[in-house]
């Protein structure tokens, strides 16, 4: 990637993110009174986080033998830990270590 590519990438990500964060200050009434926007706001993040988890797990490329089993085990570890302790950092670090342990054969598997 060229310097210009990095700059444009950063500016796109920043502009979209800033736009989302700024919108309620500009258009309070629209969000506060628009029912469909509010329903979208309540329901989309739930669906989106499920989708993003699957995307990060790379499920759409699992046709060949893959690391899918390691992903599934580690995701379950993260989910159970998060439900139990609700410490995001603990869940993320433990899950990542479990995944790395499987992938790097630290258990001799």
């Amino acid at each position, binding site marked *: 990637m060229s310097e210009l590519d990095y700059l444009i990438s950063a500016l796109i990500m920043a502009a979209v993110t*800033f736009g989302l*964060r700024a919108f309620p200050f500009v258009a309070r009434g629209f969000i*506060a009174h628009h029912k469909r926007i509010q329903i979208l706001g*309540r329901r989309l993040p739930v669906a989106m986080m499920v*989708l993003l988890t699957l995307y990060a797990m790379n499920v759409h490329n699992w046709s060949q033998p893959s690391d899918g089993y390691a992903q599934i085990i580690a995701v379950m570890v993260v*989910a159970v830990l998060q439900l139990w302790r609700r410490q995001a950092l603990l869940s993320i670090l433990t899950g990542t270590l479990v*995944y790395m342990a499987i992938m790097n054969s630290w258990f001799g598997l």
Partner: protein
Amino acid sequence: MASWRSALSLTFPVMMGYLPLGAVFGVLWVDADLTWYWAPLMSIIVYAGALQYLAVGMLAAGIGWIDLAVASLLVNFRHLFYGLSLYHLLPNGVLGKPYFIFGITDETYSLLSASGQVTDSKTALQVVAFNQGYWILGTLIGMVLARGLPPGLQGLDFALTALFTVLAVEQIRAKKDWGAVLLGLVAAAVAGFWVSDYFLLAASIMLVLVLVAWPQPRLQEDAA
């Protein structure tokens, strides 16, 4: 006076989270062989955790501008609603106002909206600045640590999956919206089966269309 001290102590829990999570971003960036100094620049210019994690893979794969914009929109869509409960803390300054808005991350939002401990815009602005400072510092720490990791070490990028899993669990816990969970799974299955090259784009368009177009009992009263 010395309100930055209270901002500092308020943001301590965020520091505990942002230093290691920022460090993971720094490590992933260096591991992906992207130009090193763009990691802290991303943390300065963009400042959006999950999106920055996601962008590492996308940039390394040379993905297009539209995909990047769509990913930004979807990953951060929830931020569209944060400002509604922070209006009373918005500073007046020409620089302060946009910087405050720029800095409304998940953690900053929950700190400022929930606690009631922050009541003036000056402290709020300091909270924002401290939090971004931790994130940038974490990024730099990660870049240094990445040099010391053994070569051939696999699987650190699972941190992104873990982060989204945590966010999903917290969303489900808060909203208990099993219909939306099912919708996410179905959209992923449909997109994965038919259009796996445009997986995220196709699946997310499906989500938005279904959620907007689906008949809502309360909406029907409205439309009358």
